[in-house]
């Protein structure tokens, strides 16, 4: 058996540094990552990276920061298993490996000039934040912007500070709901779908972008369709088990589609007839 060092391997990682860690909730931590030499990741909103801890493994993680943020990028990771537990043990200054960005992100060029409705539930805010902040940083390129946010309890809300900023902006319509409220909560209580009827929009020039746990897509899409938004203007980001990020390992396959190459962002018309998608 001969062994050869492989230049240009798709599995090569970029040795990167964690420059900031913040604990968001019991399960979620925020990480800010600097690539070697301060290079920028050069990603589209909605793309993801494969994060490595050598000796533990790799996991696909969405980029949470907007490409307009230079010099570093951000991500939020929920502790669910082997890799994510190990990542949670790391501190500022520790190194991780990065591959990517991978996948098809949100079609920013197409969204320009249109109205946007963001629907984010739970962890869905994490990838969506890359687009929301991009839009806010380039606010004048877009039409009306609405953000609908859902989380389990007020304590579960991620990026509270940023969300507070959004609520204050006049050029963003913001509404929020929680599954379970505490006595201090003044806002809506209930499913995120309950927010949709209240949004006024012009369907033919509106793009809706949805990210959240698998179970919610069907219901949210149904509401949006009721609002006459065309199928191809409804965008979702799907999560699947993923190993290689290169469209080979087979784990992320949704019928004939590969989530890592054809997605994770899909327009509804593309996946409507794909039984395993939603």
């Amino acid at each position, binding site marked *: 058996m001969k062994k050869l060092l492989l230049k240009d391997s798709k599995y090569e990682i970029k040795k990167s540094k964690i420059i900031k860690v913040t604990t968001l909730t019991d399960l979620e931590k925020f990480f800010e990552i600097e690539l070697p030499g301060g290079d920028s990741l050069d990603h589209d909103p909605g793309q993801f990276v494969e994060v490595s801890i050598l000796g533990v493994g790799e996991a696909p993680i969405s980029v949470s920061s907007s490409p307009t943020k230079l010099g570093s990028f951000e991500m939020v990771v929920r502790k669910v*298993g*082997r890799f994510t537990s190990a990542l949670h043990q790391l501190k500022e200054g520790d190194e991780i490996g990065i591959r990517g960005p991978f996948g098809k992100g949100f079609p920013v060029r197409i969204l320009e000039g249109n109205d946007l409705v963001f629907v984010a539930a739970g962890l869905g805010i994490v990838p969506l934040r890359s687009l929301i902040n991009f839009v806010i940083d380039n606010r004048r390129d877009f039409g009306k912007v609405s953000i609908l946010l859902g989380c389990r309890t007020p304590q579960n809300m991620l990026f509270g500070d940023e969300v507070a900023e959004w609520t204050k902006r006049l050029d963003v319509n913001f509404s929020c709901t929680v599954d379970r409220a505490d006595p201090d909560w003044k806002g809506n209580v209930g499913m995120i779908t309950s927010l949709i009827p209240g949004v006024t929009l012009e369907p033919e020039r509106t793009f809706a972008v949805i990210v959240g746990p698998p179970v919610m897509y069907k219901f949210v899409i149904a509401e949006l369709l009721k609002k006459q938004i065309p199928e191809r203007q409804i965008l979702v980001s799907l999560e699947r088990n993923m190993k290689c990020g290169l469209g080979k390992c087979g784990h992320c396959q949704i019928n004939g589609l590969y989530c890592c190459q054809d997605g994770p962002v899909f327009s509804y018309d593309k996946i409507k007839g794909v039984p395993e998608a939603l």
Partner: protein
Amino acid sequence: MTRTKPKVAFFDFACCEGCQLQVANMGELLLDVLGLIEVVEFREVMSEKGPEKIDVAVVEGSITDKHAIERIKKIRDRAKVLIAYGSCATIGGVNGMKNNFKLDDIRKEVYGDRFNYFDTVETKAVHQVVKVDYFVNGCPVYIPEFVKVLKAALQGIPYEVPDHAVCVECKLNENVCMYDRGVACMGPVTRAGCNSWCINNGNICYGCRGMVSNPNENGAMDIIKKYNIPMDMVINKMNMYNKCREIDKREQKKR
């Protein structure tokens, strides 16, 4: 990064101690392992007694009497991490066969009219008594897997026992399937991870690593019927190691 070596202790309950012997069988690899950990208690080969608090307890054997229940609880309290080690500990193992009989009957069988003298309770796997952090299945344990688990424990990350069938590994080893020879094999319902050890050596899988989490029991029965293998024989085989699974099922139902 210098770290103090984690303190590891070995404990044994009702078992054949073969799994501990497997540790000694690692050969010089054992010294590499000992480079990573500090063994503070290991009755079989050491006279030293460990400190009150230990980092890792490696527990072998099943829980078969009241004394053992007390002892395992104390060990759990002492240990940050508990590794159930070997079939007896992880799934009850051959000791579980005792549960095939009414407790009093088997005691009478063995002790005659003085059966009350010997205390015995239903055989249980360790996780059926206290919380277990890592499982190393097998009768005896497969050393490469033990090393894997140990490394995961030292890295502080979980280890998941493969949840697919022994057949997967068996096929990769290109064995002629036992069913093609007309013999029933527990491979299709048993968790992989042993590299299909027994079949590689011409024997069948006896199911020592426990069943996959979602076995298609009806499908398996169909297969067995097709091969004309008497059902009671197969149930007998399944019960050889996996009798204590009934306790898990019972607990699930309660919940």
